[in-house]
C-alpha cells in the first residue's frame, strides 16, 4: 500500500473513524420506501391523475344535477306550456329564445308575479328546453348505466359458467360468442329496434313499463342479446388463468398457502378488470342509445333523450342552432368524461401497464 497516498489524509484522519460502524449508522444511509397494498397503490395513482379526477367530478356533478334539479324545477319536460286546459292556445310560448318570456308570462310579470326564466328557451312546441335537456341527460345516463349492468350480469354469468365447466359446454358457448361477436352489431341493433318497436309497442300499455317506453325496453333487450360477449370472454379468461395457477400450485408442496396467494392477488385482479370494462362500457351504451334516438328508434316522445333532442333540433337548425349545440355539448362531455375516467382507472389499476 503506497504510504504517500496516505499523506493528505493524515491531517483529517481521526483514528476513531476506523472503528466499526453500527447498524444504526448503516440504516441511516438507506431510506426504505413504505410498501402498500395493490388497491391503495391503485387509488393513489388514480388520485394523482388530474384529468381522471376532473372527469370523475364532472360526472358526479352532472349525475347529481339530473337527479335533483327536476325536483324543484317549476316546469315539467312534457308540459306544453301554451296549452292550459280551459284557456285558449297561447302560441307565443313556442320557440322562445333563452331567457325570453311568452306573452302571458310577461303579463304576469307586469302584475307583480315573478316567473321563473326559461334558461334555454322553449322548443317548437312550447316546452321548457332546459328541463328537457336535464331529463334527456337523465335518460341517457340511466340507460347507459342499466344497459352496462345488464351486460355485466349476463357476461359474468355466461363467462363464469363457460370457464368453470370447461369441456363441451365451454366449446359451445365460445362458438356462440364467436358468431355473435362477428355480427355487425349496429345493423342488428337497428333492425331489432325497428322490429321490437312495432312488436312490443302496444303490449306494454297499462304496465309501469309503459312509462319507460317500448323503445328503451327493446334497447335493453338488444344489449342483453348482443353486448355481453366481450365481458364473457374476459371473465372466462380470468377464470382459466385462475385454474392454471391453482393447478401449478397444487402440484407443488405449497398446499393451503398457495390458495391464499390466489385469493389475495387474482380475485382483486378479476375485480379490477370487471370494473374497468364496465366503466368503459357505459359511454359506449350512451353512444348507442343516442344514436338510435337520433334515428327515431330510441325513446318515445314526449320523453326526451339527448339523441332525440339533437334530432329534433335539425329541423330548425338555421334559426335555432343552440338547440343542437346544447345537447351535443352535453353528450360529448359525458362520453368524454366517462372515457377519460375509464382510461384513468385502467392506467391506475391494470398491473400489466405498470413500468
Amino acid at each position, binding site marked *: 500500500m503506497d504510504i504517500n497516498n*496516505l499523506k493528505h*489524509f493524515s491531517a483529517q484522519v481521526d483514528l476513531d*473513524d476506523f472503528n466499526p460502524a453500527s447498524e444504526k449508522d448503516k440504516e441511516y444511509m438507506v431510506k426504505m420506501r413504505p410498501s402498500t397494498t395493490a388497491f391503495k397503490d391503485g387509488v393513489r395513482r388514480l388520485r394523482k391523475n388530474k384529468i381522471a379526477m376532473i372527469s370523475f367530478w364532472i360526472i358526479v356533478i352532472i349525475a347529481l344535477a339530473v337527479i335533483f334539479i327536476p325536483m324543484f324545477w317549476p316546469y315539467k319536460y312534457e308540459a306544453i306550456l301554451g296549452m292550459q286546459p280551459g284557456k285558449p292556445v297561447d302560441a307565443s310560448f313556442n320557440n322562445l329564445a333563452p331567457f325570453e318570456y311568452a306573452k302571458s308570462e310577461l303579463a304576469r310579470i307586469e302584475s307583480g308575479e315573478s316567473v321563473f326564466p326559461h334558461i334555454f328557451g322553449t322548443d317548437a312546441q312550447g316546452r321548457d328546453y332546459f328541463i328537457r335537456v336535464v331529463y334527456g341527460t337523465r335518460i341517457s345516463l340511466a340507460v347507459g348505466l342499466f344497459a352496462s349492468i345488464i351486460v355485466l350480469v349476463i357476461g359474468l354469468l355466461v363467462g363464469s359458467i363457460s370457464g368453470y365447466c370447461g369441456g363441451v359446454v365451454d366449446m359451445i358457448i365460445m362458438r356462440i360468442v364467436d358468431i355473435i361477436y362477428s355480427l355487425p352489431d349496429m345493423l342488428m341493433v337497428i333492425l331489432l329496434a325497428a322490429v321490437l318497436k312495432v312488436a312490443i309497442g302496444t303490449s306494454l300499455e297499462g304496465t309501469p313499463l309503459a312509462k319507460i317506453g317500448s323503445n328503451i325496453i327493446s334497447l335493453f333487450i338488444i344489449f342483453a342479446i348482443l353486448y355481453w360477449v366481450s365481458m364473457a370472454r374476459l371473465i372466462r379468461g380470468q377464470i382459466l388463468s385462475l385454474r392454471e395457477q391453482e393447478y401449478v400450485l397444487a402440484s407443488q408442496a405449497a398446499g393451503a398457502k398457495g390458495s391464499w396467494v390466489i385469493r389475495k392477488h387474482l380475485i382483486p385482479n378479476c375485480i379490477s378488470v370487471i370494473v374497468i370494462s364496465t366503466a368503459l362500457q357505459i359511454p359506449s351504451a350512451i353512444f348507442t342509445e343516442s344514436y338510435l334516438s337520433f334515428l327515431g328508434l330510441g325513446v318515445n316522445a314526449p320523453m326526451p333523450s339527448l339523441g332525440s333532442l339533437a334530432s329534433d333540433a335539425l329541423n330548425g337548425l338555421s334559426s335555432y342552432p343552440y338547440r343542437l349545440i346544447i345537447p351535443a355539448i352535453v353528450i360529448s362531455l359525458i362520453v368524454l368524461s366517462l372515457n377519460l375516467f375509464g382510461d384513468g382507472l385502467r392506467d391506475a389499476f391494470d398491473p400489466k401497464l405498470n413500468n
Partner: protein
Amino acid sequence: MALLEVKDLHTSFFTDAGEVRAVNGVSFQLDHGKVLGIVGESGSGKSVTAYSIMQILAGTGKIVSGSIKFDGQELVGAGEKVMKDIRGNKISIIFQDPMTSLNPTYTIGHQLMEAILLHTNRNKQQAWDRAVEMLKLVNVNEPEKRMKQYPYEFSGGMRQRVMIAMALACEPDILIADEPTTALDVTIQAGILELMKDIQKKMGMAIIMITHDLGVVAQLCDEVVVMYAGSICEQGTADEIFYNPCHEYTKGLMRSIPTAENSGQRLEPISGTPIDLLNMPKGCPFAPRCDAAMKICIKQRCERMEINDSHYASCWMNVKKAVSEK
C-alpha cells in the same frame, strides 16, 4: 496510447422522479486486443457505461461530464455524425436478450447486410458474400438458406450467434458484449463463450465483457473492473482480483462463489439491498451492506488508491491495514 480511455465518466437519467445517477466517476483504459471484464450486480451501472461509450442511451439519459477517447478521438460531445460512423463499424455491441434484439419483420440477411452496406464500400453481392462468411465464422449451419429466414425461425443460441456475426461484420476494434450469455441456457452459454474466445484469437479485437458471472470473467478476461452503484470499487488484472481482492465488495463476491477451497462450507451471500440511485447518500455506497464497515465509510467515500501499478481499489480497509502495518 490506449485504444479506449474513459476518464471520470458521469452519466445520469433525468426522470420525473429526479436525477438517477447511474454512473459516477468511472475511469478505465482498454488496450488493443485485450479483454476487459466489467463485473457488478444489476443496477451497478455497467451497462450504462457501455451505452455511454456508444452513446445509445435511452431517452432521458445523458452524459453529464467526463471524457471518452477512442483512438485519441474524443467521443463525448462529438455529435451524431461522428458516432454514426463509429457504431457498428469501429465499436460494436451485442446485447443481453437475443430474442428481442433482432427486428422480427426483416430477414437475417437484410439485417446482417445493413451494417456492411452502411459502413463499407461493398456492393450488394459483396455484402451478401461477406454476411454469409460471417455466418460461417459463428458456426451457423446452412448459411445461404439462413440468410433468407426471419428471426423467429432461429433459436436463442443461434440468434446470439447472428448478433455476434452482425457486430463483427465490419471488423471493429472493440466489441462490447453486454451480458451475452445471461439469457441463454447453461449449455448454450459455454458454446457462445468458446466462440468468442475463438474469434478473439482469430480477429484480435479488444473486448469489453459485461457480466455478473465471475466464471465468465475467469474464462475470458485479462483485466477486470468491479462496479457497484455506479462507481468502480476495484480494478486490476484478473489474477489480482481473484487472488488478492482489496475491496470489501470484491471480497464478498469471491466468498459467495463455490470454489475448490470452500467446498463443503456454507456459501456467504452478501446481505441487504443496493442503495437508491435517486437519493445517493454520502459515504461509500457499499457501506450499508458491508460487514466490515467503519465509521469513516459512512461519512466519506474512499478515493481510488494504488495497490500496485495495475491494481487499484477504493476501500478504507486498505488505509486501515496500511496504518496498522506502520
